[in-house]
């Protein structure tokens, strides 16, 4: 059985910074399996976030091909790319990026509504996920009323609720203290086992490396290790 979820072949990404070209990724070749629990590690500017954005369909490579289950992402239209993100990808951001005027419940519900579910059909699913991340007593609160750790749990619930095949977490513990970081990592590890979604972190937090099953090292836009 082909277990390959994502394939990157000769991916490079060049950004224009003023008049200068900045090369974020150089000839990256990589494969990610279904159900993976892995991380991209490296110093700032090594290309971790760029790689995550390309895999998540938020950006397109300058050269090279990127495949999702053998479907070429780089030839998709903007709307197809949006559909790809909507149906397959869950994002967790360093700054949580929760919708500020929505409650915990509404933030978690939102991806399901985007996928065409009716609220009454989605309620149980939302409550189940919110329970799993331990926020059932905060359901009516808005992001501004929650702590950083709680916000990140909401972001995890929002990423998981639509049952994606891939969750991309960009520095999810960067804004959290040690205790909250460990709780979040344990939670994600459990959910990975439970929901079978592949989870890819970008991080330079050493605590993350204790939890992941695979670690891809990046430096100056190149893969320097894969273990």
């Amino acid at each position, binding site marked *: 059985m082909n277990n390959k979820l994502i394939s990157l072949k000769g991916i490079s990404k060049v950004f224009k910074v003023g008049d200068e070209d900045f090369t974020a990724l150089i000839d990256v070749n990589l494969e990610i399996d279904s159900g993976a629990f892995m991380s991209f590690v490296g110093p700032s500017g090594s290309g971790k976030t760029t790689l995550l954005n390309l895999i998540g369909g938020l*950006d*397109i490579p300058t050269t090279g091909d990127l495949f999702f289950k053998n479907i070429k992402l780089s030839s998709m239209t*903007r709307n197809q790319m*949006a*559909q790809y*993100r909507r149906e397959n990808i869950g994002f967790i951001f360093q700054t949580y990026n929760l*919708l500020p005027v929505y409650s915990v419940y509404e933030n978690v519900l939102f991806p399901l*509504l*985007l996928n065409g579910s009716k609220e009454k059909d989605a309620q149980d699913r939302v409550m189940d996920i919110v329970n799993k991340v331990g926020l059932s007593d905060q359901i009516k609160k808005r992001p501004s009323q929650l702590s950083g750790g709680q916000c990140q749990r909401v972001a995890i619930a929002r990423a998981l609720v639509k049952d994606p095949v891939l969750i991309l977490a960009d520095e999810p513990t960067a804004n959290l203290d040690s205790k909250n970081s460990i709780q979040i990592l344990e939670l994600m590890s459990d959910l990975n086992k439970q929901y079978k979604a592949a989870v890819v972190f970008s991080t330079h937090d050493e605590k993350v490396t204790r939890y992941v099953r695979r670690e891809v090292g990046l430096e100056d836009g190149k893969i320097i290790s894969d273990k």
Partner: protein
Amino acid sequence: MNWSIAKKNFSRQGLRASLNVLVTALSIIALVFMLSLLNGFQAQATRNVVSTDVAGGHYRAPGFDILSPTEWEDHTVTIPKFIRQLDNNDKAEVLVLQGQLYPNRRLYPVQIRGISIDQSLLKLPLNSLKNFSKNIDDIIPAVVGVKMAKKAHLKKGDTLTLKWRDKSGAVDAKDILIVDIGDMLNPRIDEGVVWLRLDHLRFMTDRKDQVSWIAVQNYIGPVSGFEFQSIEFLMADLLALWRQDRINSKILWAILMTLVCISVFNTQMLNIFKRQKEIGTLMALGMDSNRIVRIFTLEGALAAIWALVVSLLIGLPFFIWFQGIGFDVSHLSESTLPIRETIYPDYQPMEIIYSLVIVFFLIVASSWFPVKKITRLDPTMALRGRAIK
């Protein structure tokens, strides 16, 4: 779903949305107020000239020109019987001749204006002439306007000499008594004008049944021996001034609209600018660009609708209240403009409606434009808050 998301986003923005709505509403109120005041000024001045002088037009003696005083004596005609029989509410007979007044040993060239005392077509403060019962063999009753009185240092009860020429050109003179100082509203019938009863003036100048013109309520067809001059003709100078003023008011409207535009656009841009990350998040969650644009445009439309509602709620009582008290322009009473001490705004529904429609579409456009721009870029730019700077 788009509508419910837009409604939720808008209603939960709290202070930010409220300030946005309030700023726009106040801009709308200021716009409507300024335009209405300008309209009120013009409408009031026009009304004053019509009600005190022009009425529905003049049947004038051929060749009579108010700007040629030396020829006034040569251009009088006898009033036809059928016009004389018109109701006092439908006509006002006027005889205009030149004269000299001698206030405080000074010579003051004046327009002697005799008007049929029973007329009720023109609204003039001449009741004192009607009530004066003295024989004019002794003294002639006269009324002057406030401006004239001020300029010639006249007051009620003053007696002074008036000199004129009669029909045959002989110079005659007699004392006149200022029986009243009247507020004429219209400077053209105030400054340099001495008002007498028409029967007195005819008697003084031996011009039985003669008039310079007859002001009428409505055009009654061609009248032999007279030229009809319409409101437009008689008010040509004022209307030309208004036309120029309308150009100025269009410029003022454009300036006000620009200020409203800048205010609205700035508020909306700032709002969208602060929500770039939110837009990026929606893109990351898989919402397609067109839908994001639709939602934010709907939010803009909601803000616009609320701004219109709030401007109505705040503006309507204010406009009604202001309609009652008016705007004090007593500092302009010294000017040559035919206005009262107070201007009352004149609300033009069409002008207000198209101004509001423009503001509405502007708000919608200023919501649509930046979001459209953001959604054309990569979601990563929006997520970093760098899509618009």
